[in-house]
């Protein structure tokens, strides 16, 4: 089926995306001893804090320059400087991310200049790293905000460094559990690595008797500085535009070869990731991972007949849609609708080889909304939804079960602990999909067959 877009130039009903500053904040939350300040009105930081707090079940402290009417007319530098000073005093971070918002961009704030002035005026903060990022809400979605921020962090921090046997991993917007799994997999190859960002502990912190509001975890600044010396970069994200790609920056600036790979969800995507690690490290794929792979294959056989009846609608950020679609296709679940709120025209091209014969039956939509997704549920005979908790309205209205993945998940606990990556995570994810289909079947087949057959 061709990529048919609803003509929704003027109206977005039930958004399937969030704004750039949210993606930016998520990226900063994975950096050592980092605080974020949003340059704009007070609401942006509060809304984003709320949105992230209910997903990760963690306190999310994000400062704001709290611009008001006067600043909007005369420029917000006074408030931004005051905001920086207060945040630095309260939190004492090593790095402060300053992301703009719709407002700051529209009134034309010159972040670079304000930061330079501030550093001159307040020499006591000379050891702090300042990373300004331009993230107007109208400039893209959280997807772009996330990668752009990582790129800007590199642009500010990374210096020339002697070459060493090490690999850079640019992580996609995954869960804390996923990041832990990825770190575990990389470690098994006995190669030094830097993962950027690292939300494994910052957004899923163990309980500690002495809570620290500024997490010392996350990617260490010292490691970011020397990512230039790595042997290669693996960037997770097949749809990241080059101009915001952190891996591309390292390649262009420091000649670190860039390997792009999908989020390691599904058997082929995990294979791809591990093969890259094998190639870069020169070490073979460890036995323990081979065992996990074997178990996944075994599980795939166990559930293939149930999965054959699955007709899925997948929605969310472009890369998670792509990865989840691949996993579905590998297992005979037909991803009849794949949708993202972000602009990702390459998604269709990327999926074409995998869709193969199913191509005529599957619809891919980018820059779309959830009302559009809803409008296709009956039309395409969809019996399982895969995406964020924002699809719960569709579930209620159309009576289709929802398997929650991606960001945000507001109406369940444990979103930060949900594991989708690697063979183990993929199989857990697959089991959840299969069990959802089984539950649907078991709760309806007696009645269905009675009505169909009993005379």
């Amino acid at each position, binding site marked *: 089926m061709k990529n048919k877009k609803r003509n929704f130039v*003027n109206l977005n009903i039930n958004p399937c995306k969030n704004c750039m500053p949210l993606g930016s904040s998520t990226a900063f939350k994975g950096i050592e001893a980092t605080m974020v300040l949003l340059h704009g009105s007070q609401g942006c930081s509060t809304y984003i804090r709320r949105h992230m707090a209910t997903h990760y079940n963690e*306190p999310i402290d*994000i*400062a704001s320059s*709290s611009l008001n009417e006067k600043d909007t007319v005369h420029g917000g530098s006074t408030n931004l400087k005051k905001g920086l000073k*207060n945040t630095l*005093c*309260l939190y004492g971070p090593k790095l402060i991310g300053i992301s703009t918002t719709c407002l700051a961009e529209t009134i034309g704030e010159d972040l670079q200049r304000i930061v330079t002035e501030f550093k001159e005026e307040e020499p006591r903060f000379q050891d702090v790293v300042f990373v300004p990022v331009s993230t107007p809400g*109208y400039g893209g979605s959280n997807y772009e905000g996330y990668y752009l921020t990582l790129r800007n962090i590199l642009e500010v921090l990374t210096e020339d460094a002697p070459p060493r046997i090490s690999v850079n991993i640019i992580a996609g917007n995954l869960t804390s559990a996923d990041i832990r799994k990825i770190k575990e997999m990389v470690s098994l190859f006995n190669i030094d690595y830097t993962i950027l960002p690292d939300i494994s502990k910052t957004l899923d912190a163990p309980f500690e008797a002495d809570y620290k509001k500024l997490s010392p975890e996350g990617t260490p600044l010292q490691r970011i500085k020397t990512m230039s010396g790595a042997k290669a970069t693996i960037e997770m994200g097949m749809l990241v535009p080059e101009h915001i790609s952190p891996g591309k920056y390292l390649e262009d600036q420091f000649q670190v070869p860039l390997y792009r790979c999908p989020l390691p969800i599904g058997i082929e995507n995990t294979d791809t990731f591990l093969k890259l690690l094998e190639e870069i490290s020169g070490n073979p794929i460890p036995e323990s991972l081979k065992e996990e792979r074997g178990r996944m294959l075994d599980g795939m056989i166990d559930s293939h007949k149930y999965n054959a009846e699955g007709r899925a609608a997948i929605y969310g950020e472009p890369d998670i849609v792509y990865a989840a679609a691949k996993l579905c296709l590998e297992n005979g679940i037909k991803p009849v609708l794949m949708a993202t709120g972000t602009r990702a025209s390459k998604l269709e091209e990327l999926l074409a080889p995998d869709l193969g014969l199913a191509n005529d039956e599957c619809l891919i939509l980018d820059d779309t909304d959830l009302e559009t997704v809803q409008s296709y549920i009956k039309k395409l005979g969809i019996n399982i939804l895969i995406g964020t908790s924002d699809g719960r309205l569709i579930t209620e209205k159309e009576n289709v079960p929802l398997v929650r993945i991606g960001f945000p998940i507001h109406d369940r606990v444990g979103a930060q602990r949900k594991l989708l990556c690697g063979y183990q995570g993929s199989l857990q994810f697959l089991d959840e999909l299969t069990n959802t289909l089984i539950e649907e079947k078991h709760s309806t087949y007696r009645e269905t067959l009675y009505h169909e057959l009993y005379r």
Partner: protein
Amino acid sequence: MSYQLPDPLEERKHSIIRKTGKQQEEKIQCNQNSVAGAVSQRACVYCGARVVLNPITDAYHIVHGPIGCASYTFDIRGSLTSGADTFRNSFSTDLRETDIIFGGEKKLAAAIDEIVAAHHPKLIFIYSTCVVGVIGDDLEAVCRNAEKQYGIRVIPIQSSGFAGNKNAGYKAACHALLNLMGEENPVEKEAGINFLGDFNLAGEIWINQSYFRRMGLPVVSKVTGDARYEELIKAPRARLNIVQCAGSMTYLAKLMREKYKIPFINVSFYGLEDTAKSLRKIAYALDEPEILQKTEVLIQEEYDKAHLALEPYRARLAGKKAAIYVGGGFKAISLIKQFRDLGMETVMVGTQTGNSDDYETIRQLAAEDTIILDDTNPSELERFMKEKGADILVGGVKERPLAYKLGVAFCDHNHERKQPLNGFVGAVNFAREVEQSINSPVWHWIRKERRAYNEK
């Protein structure tokens, strides 16, 4: 404790007071714009307007701006409906870079056209967001044209995020409501009341409605919990306005008093004491023997029942310490009384948008040495909850994970709650929630963890 908590910011020192016994105490600084970089828990003007108008069930709420403001307010509130559920959807003009350059008016007009064609609405609200306020789209004109073209109500809300604080958003919502209620002042009033400032979270307004029914008191219009267009436009006919969420709705009540000559009284249905007091206050204001008599019967039937139901909770909660951080003043005031009724002591109390009168009442109610704070932040919450040894925090969604990280119980008294906390029955729900959290077995393990840490 190894970790040094920073002092509050200099600019915030007058927004934090410690109650002493003295008559002449320092007045708390409140109703100001948030301090930059302080990490305020408040939202913005848009949020204030949206939260007040959101529960109007059959309205189309279009957020005119880039996507974020619509994403973050998409079906996140727990308001229930007895009719349409249009309000749970999120409509946005999803402005892009080119719209910022060339203006968004055409797009907005087209968005209205689309909604009218597809849904034939009676009422559309258009919220302005930060950029719209800067690029200067003429919302009023677009709305006027649409009203003329379609013969429906299309009401603009001037809620650019930066144009004040959350209180300004409440006022913008009040103006929109007044606009909806219209110019006419019906001379003949009906027997009933309007209920302002309940948002039907978890069906709370239905509890109140059942009380009013038993009092023989018709409700003309609910503002805005479970409200609908047809009902709201009748509001000018009511005899009396009762105002619960004073922070957001006193302003509208005053406007309505001026325009429609409807007097108003303040009420609160949180806790047994305030519920009984408020019901009587309404009955006295209407001054009809039959209503008065029925009200007494209702209170007699419900108060004692609830009071008795609270007994087991009192036994399990006596002596525990509560911290309160909520949106509005009236709620904080009721909560202090509710905790007292449960034998608990309030050790810290704050609000996002309380005014000086609210804080004066709070000060009088509070026990010696209670910390009172306005527009606080996570650093101060942490510091004072630790200092005072709070056992539970009552607050909003953002405060919940902080309480948990500090090993403190939590009560969700926010817009997302899933159980009603008002009226006699809600007071019992409240006690149950507080008890369930405070006396959960998980704290046993947390205390053990802490002991081990302190011994190290």
